[in-house]
């Protein structure tokens, strides 16, 4: 099955800094999603991005399907961006999650 790896595992930023989170997947995917898990454990959908680039406010995501990676870019980070970021890829039916990047944004 599909393997999904994320890097870095942990990231500490000062408020206002920019960051890039990376997701590599082992096989072709039909779907690639990015989630933010908030302190209450809820998975918040950030992007559905099987290919190309999307932007939503300070966040943008890019997937290069032919090179089997996706990246999430956070600009001007805020303390509310703290939490765990997961990418997940779908081959046929199910989503397979990566191990996540734990982000801490300090004031």
């Amino acid at each position, binding site marked *: 099955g599909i393997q999904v790896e994320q890097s870095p595992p942990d990231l500490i930023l000062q408020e206002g800094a920019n960051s890039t989170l990376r997701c590599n997947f082992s096989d072709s995917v039909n779907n690639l*999603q990015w989630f933010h898990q908030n302190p209450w*454990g809820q998975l918040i959908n950030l992007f*559905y991005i099987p290919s190309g680039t999307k932007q939503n406010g300070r966040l943008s995501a890019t997937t290069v399907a032919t090179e089997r990676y996706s990246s999430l870019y956070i600009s001007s980070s805020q303390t509310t961006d703290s939490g765990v970021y997961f990418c997940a890829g779908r081959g046929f039916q199910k*989503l397979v999650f990566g*191990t996540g990047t734990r982000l801490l944004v300090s004031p």
Partner: protein
Amino acid sequence: EPEVTQTPSHQVTQMGQEVILRCVPISNHLYFYWYRQILGQKVEFLVSFYNNEISEKSEIFDDQFSVERPDGSNFTLKIRSTKLEDSAMYFCASFSGFNTIYFGEGSWLTVV
């Protein structure tokens, strides 16, 4: 955004007791899933459900687990005899077959 609803949000149960976690997927969706996340770990696939039957299950989904769609709207996960290691967040997810898979807010299960 479309919403997947899960109940209860948190349940504490004694070891050996049966637990039923409930989910209301998005109407007109065809694929339904349960995932589990042990505290501090990654989100793991348990089972997928399509056309009123299990389409795929993981090694975690052993005989103590079962799923059901009893009335065409609810989707349930039953754990027959809970163990301490079943303590986790359980997520239900819903998929039309296209684009985004939507997740519910999760049900925290604590087994004591």
